[in-house]
């Protein structure tokens, strides 16, 4: 959303199109050093992916890149052109909460909420890949999603609530 670029020896800019949540979004004259996280947040108006560390340590910017869970802060945006990018904003296009989002609300898994979008993306990814994942698998899957408020207890509770609800729905 800002149209200016850093200047200096490596001021190379590029224009490209990103496919985000099924929509093609043009990025114009952007410095090629910008991360996917920065472009999503600052150029494309999608601040749902969070910036708690911007060096791939915290998971708060988790997105899917061609179906693979990645830290958007560690992906060059220009490199993501041509890939299918799915962010937290794309999980519930209708505005309705997904079952994971609803369980987080109802089980008290949200406090400050800064880690939550990344956490939600990671748990949807886990359950898409491994519908039978147990709590240890969950713990491993989100061990790269740091939460400082909750001690994870209510997040585990939300996970179990989703699994129970899905099990009921499939019987």
């Amino acid at each position, binding site marked *: *959303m*800002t149209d*200016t*670029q*850093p*200047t*200096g020896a490596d001021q190379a800019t590029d224009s490209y199109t990103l496919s985000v949540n099924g929509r093609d979004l043009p990025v114009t004259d952007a*410095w090629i050093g910008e991360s996917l996280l*920065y472009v999503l947040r*600052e150029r494309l108006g999608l*601040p*749902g*992916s*969070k*910036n*708690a*560390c*911007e*060096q791939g*340590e*915290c998971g708060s910017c988790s997105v899917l890149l061609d179906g693979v869970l990645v830290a958007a802060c560690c992906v060059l945006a220009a490199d993501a052109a041509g890939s299918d990018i799915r*962010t*937290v*904003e794309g*999980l*519930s296009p209708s505005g309705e*909460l997904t079952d994971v*989002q609803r369980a*987080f*609300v*109802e089980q*008290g898994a*949200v*406090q*400050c*909420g*800064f*880690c*939550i*979008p990344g956490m*939600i993306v990671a748990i949807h990814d886990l359950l898409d890949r491994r519908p039978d994942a147990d709590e*240890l698998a*969950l*713990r*491993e899957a*989100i*061990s*790269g*999603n*740091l*939460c*400082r*408020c*909750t*001690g*994870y*207890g*209510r*997040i*585990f509770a939300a996970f179990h609530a989703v699994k129970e609800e899905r099990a009921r729905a499939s019987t």
Partner: protein
Amino acid sequence: MPAPSLPSTFTRKRRAPGLGESVLRPDAPAKTKGQFAFSSDLYLEGMLWGATLRSPHPSARIRSLDPAPALAIGGVHAVITNDDLWGSRTYGLEHHDQPVFADQVVRYHGEPVAAVAADHPEIARRAAAAIAVDYEVTEPLVDAEAALTAPPIHPDGNLFRHLKIRFGDPGAQGEVTVEGDYEVGMQDQAFLGPESGLAVPSEDGGVELYVATQWLHVDRDQIAACLNLPREKVRLTLAGTGGAFGGREDLSMQIHACLLALVTRRPVKMVYSREESFFGHVHRHPARLWYRHHATAEGKLVKVEARMVFDGGAYASSSTAVISNACAFAPGPYYVPNAHVDGYAVRTNNPPCGAMRGFGAVQTSFAAEAQMDRLAAALGMDQVELRLANALKQHDQLITGQVIIGTAPVAECITACRDLPLPEPLAADAPALSLPGGAGLTAEVRDVRRGVGFAVGFKNLGFSEGFDDYSTARVRLELGPDDQPLATVHVATVEVGQGFTTIAMQIARAELGVREVVVQTADTQVGSAGSTSASRQTMMSGGAIQMACSAVREVLLERAALDLHLAPADMVLEEGELVTRDGTAGVPLADALKAGPIEATREFHHAPTEPLDENGQGNAHWSLAFAAHRAVVDVDPELGLVKVVQVATAQDIGRALNPLAVTGQVEGGIAQGIGLAVMEEIVLDQGKVRNPSFTDYLIPTALDMPPVVQTWIEQPERGVPYGAKGVGEPPTVSSTGAVVAAIRQATGLPLRRVPVRPDDIALAPRQ
């Protein structure tokens, strides 16, 4: 101390609706969808990005500083340094000793030297790096003990406070004594939402700041002084705050962003990176503590002697209050008839330290609880029995001479915690991920030893030592768009994630019997709410909302009584209807509101406290909260790896206004206690921070965090709204000590320092 006067509680036939129920957070749906606006999400057309230049040295003189290379970069709009300031050049929470930008000298690694505004964050960062600073590096003062006698590194000297507590008979001696030295490392709050905000110059020459903080009004006052603006021209609005835990009580980017906005006449956004965040806020004080406990042969405490030195780093922050807590709660929650305590908070060239969850009580709890275990061993007593035999209770004296007039269910916490179920023994086929070392796949079940440890802690709720602690609430009741009653609550209370917004709605619903409650965005357009710290907002801002609602209700009752030709005293508000006491006649709330909106603003002040005197005596504290923790750990002694298996706790909470929120506070607070026990430390090398990242500063992950088994002792506290005590800090006070006690039991090692590092176990001389 007398209980503060509160409005008389309204008589209800039924329980107040919503209070005591697990009402869900109103902000949670937006937070799960990524639609909740945090302070780092803010955007305005034409805004600039700010960046800070920080000192790479913990101690140096600035020979020269040349901003020209930065200003020569295209897209740079301003560089500001100490020379460009036009208001106060220093700020601080309690003592204004911290420079806005380094003034000729730098006193810690990461001290701000200049700030830049530019079109793009990368330009701003490069420009900051381009500023030419010529440093004459000087020897840093990094040893807190040495600071007591070293030449001053600041005009205000190196001693922030020496607090002496002299209580009882100085000659008292016990038949059994145990003595030890203890050390606590520097912990970081590690809130996930980085320091950030957006400053916008306003047409009247003032500035609007949208920011994540803990106390809007104290931020405003410090900022206004540094901008040389009247307070009313500095307007703060709370932006979404991604955790705090004490680390946002001091200013970070606030003044810098406002200065840049005023200089450039453009909105300026600043967002710290994680690395900068480690430099941008105060940490938990590292401490060295010596203790000697005296007891009778039967296990009654006779005396506690302690000497402690807290490293406050380069600037005062809240060091004087932290050391006060550390000293007052030095023995832990036990009755001790005699005490001799010396606490020092000192200035060094280490990073500044201030508030973090537990605020001084954490450091002394770790040492005091280790002492209690050693005393039990010396006496041949069970560790839990020794604690029970000495547990503080209501009407006992603290070592500050203060008699506890509030509830003090220490024995209840201890027995309830002791009786919680223990986990199953480690299974022979336990998955590798659940063993010490986890994904490293290093430990084998046959090498793992289990230990169980116990610790009990307490601290004060609200601000102490004579501070006039209060909160302000404005409540407006009117007919909403659908002609239904609508209550609007306006408080400056900062929601950092703890759940106060939910509590505010619950209180307004309970007091006014309305369904629709809007909690306005917190800002400085209403009176101060005080800090979101010291576990105080449910009590303080909750109390203010209760009082304002009560005042609104009085007007409602007057209106209804007038309608029915009765006296207001004949009427009550019940279930959204104004009815006569005998229930024979009534006026719907909506009807009473047809005459117009009703608004009331009230302040809740807690009961007055007093400063500690020259002997550390005085009624310095208002309400106290207690908790017991029991930890179970698995340890691989050869590898020095620890897996915390379970933490059980019984906590004194007064009354749960929202059980789900209490559950989350307890679990989250214990996670931070576990972090201090076995993972978290800011590592310093001659004053330089060596691990400013989440790769090297480790906080508990989902694989590290054990199940928490919790139970609550609910004894309503007199003089606080609904009897509910603050719950945020006690989980962090003694959970650390319980985990380390469990490791001691598993290994037989003394372990007198936290965090316990693998080397402390693996390389320790075998006993």
